[in-house]
């Protein structure tokens, strides 16, 4: 097999497992942009090491190993201790779920978008600060003049409400089908 074909084969496998890898990386970093960057880095390493990879071996554990190294690099670059769930534990159970796979995400994403649009203006403003301006809860609390605990509580309530709204919409969609 030529190197180009090998790279393409491995990248196809990478793509097929991207949901599981995204779940693993996001669970460890909790950083959207870092997650997308690390997924890009994994693709680079996969292509770089394609020639030495034994294609008879399962690819996902290899991808997960690369992902773990990239996550550790990410934390080293940030100069912070990684206060995340242990890698072994995440590797143990996150790949068992299909929650981040495209087939599961697509309809959920559309439903979530509709639910977010229904939020009251003040709550949408908080959402904007958290997810567009990427402020943390203490920065949001200073901006809106509420306690940090109040912001944690508000975000948790909003997310629970959004999940109920999404589940309801998906149930309705299922009923129509």
């Amino acid at each position, binding site marked *: 097999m030529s190197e180009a074909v090998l790279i393409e084969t491995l990248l196809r496998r990478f793509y097929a497992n991207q949901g599981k890898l995204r779940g693993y990386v996001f669970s460890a970093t909790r950083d959207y942009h870092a997650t997308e960057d690390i997924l890009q880095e994994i693709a680079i390493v996969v292509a770089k090491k394609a020639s030495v990879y034994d294609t008879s071996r399962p690819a996902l554990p290899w991808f997960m190993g690369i992902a773990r190294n990239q996550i550790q690099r990410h934390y080293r670059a940030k100069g912070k201790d990684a206060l995340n769930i242990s890698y072994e*534990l995440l590797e143990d159970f996150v790949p068992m779920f299909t929650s981040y796979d495209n087939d599961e995400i697509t309809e959920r994403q559309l439903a979530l978008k509709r639910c977010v649009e229904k939020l009251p203006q003040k709550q949408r403003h908080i959402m904007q600060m958290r997810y567009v301006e990427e402020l943390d809860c203490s920065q949001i609390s200073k901006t809106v003049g509420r306690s940090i605990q109040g912001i944690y509580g508000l975000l948790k309530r909003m997310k629970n409400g959004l999940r109920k709204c999404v589940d309801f919409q998906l149930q309705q969609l299922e009923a129509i089908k």
Partner: protein
Amino acid sequence: MNKPDSTKTPDLISEYYLRELSPVELNELQELLRSDPDARLQFVAHGRDEWLLHHIHHLQTQKIISFNPRKTRKRKIQAIAAAVAIVATLGTVLFSKSATISEMIASKPSATALARVSDYFVYEGQAISVVNDGHVRKLNAASKIRVGDRLVIPPGCQLSFQYLEENTEISLAGGSRVYITDNDGAKWIRLEQGRLMADVDKQAEEKPMRLVTRDAEVIVLGTTFELLAEKITRLSVSSGAVRFNSKNSEQSVVVNSGCLVDSSDGPLASVPYRMVHLVSTATKSLNAPVEPQMIAVDPVRNYNGLLSFDLKDVQGKILEAKLRMRVLGRELDIGGAGDLRLYRVQPGKNGNGQRVEVSIFSGGAGRNKDLVMDLDPSLLECGENEFLLTLDKGRNDFWICSAKGPVPPMLELKVVEE
């Protein structure tokens, strides 16, 4: 071991995605995840919802309509092509091999245009690639920069772009990675890594420009400044005033003209800085019988360069040091490429004796362009500093303007009072 309190499961899981848990809380959550299958299910579902919230807001800022309900074969091929393109460009960053993104994987951009390329240089065989929502394109001098673009600038390459309908100009040094978007009319740039210089027109007060790094945020209403994102973030303001927010310490400071601030530990303080430019006091080509205006660096013929700088008059603490050298060419040369190494050596020994590597440049630099090497300031010494310039085998040799040439090597130092 006590059984974890499962009634706290939703709170701990939810808060894991909102804040840093304490080590005790983290242990408690890990015990829950080990022992309770339902907690694992909830953990993954919470994570997925948090990721989706980021994702839909990210798409919203790009003003791109949500993706197709089903991944089509075309989308899959585009995604793979995107990965291959990133490999191609970052390959040049990482391994300094010539690589170009194939035209076949360049796709038609659909996101709103924000800016146009105003200055652009890539070394032959390299490319500045852009990835935007799975679409990949290669930049050229006539390209537009669009909402949601992720740019990779290989070492030795340069890119400047100017925002449409105003004079705001952003310049990116080689080795930089940025993400560019627009938040309801407010300019927004994430500098993942590298160096960015900005000359910003007056911005509307309610829509300041924001530049974000992993540990800091810069809010701009109109000014000229430089932002460095490496282990720490450093902002140096040349004119105007810029607000700098540290994400780690949650402190904020206004940085005025002629001052800098960085995100390192300790109180956030804006301090005056000055730039010191030292011209090389002596340069020569070791072993090379070439004209005195050039320094030749060629591993095949064992040509190396020797440069000297006298730092005895530099007062204060050096925060940043850059060695700027003008790349020349001989006859049809297009410049040089490869792993160029700079060693500090003992003065007066012609490059022999102990060597301390102070910088490496991996990439290409074109003829008549400046090659810039970042030096670790802690490795500079007071007084005479002599440097040996070598090139690893396997790439194209460098010919550099010497101290006797029209553009001598220059050491640029950013200095603050101690």
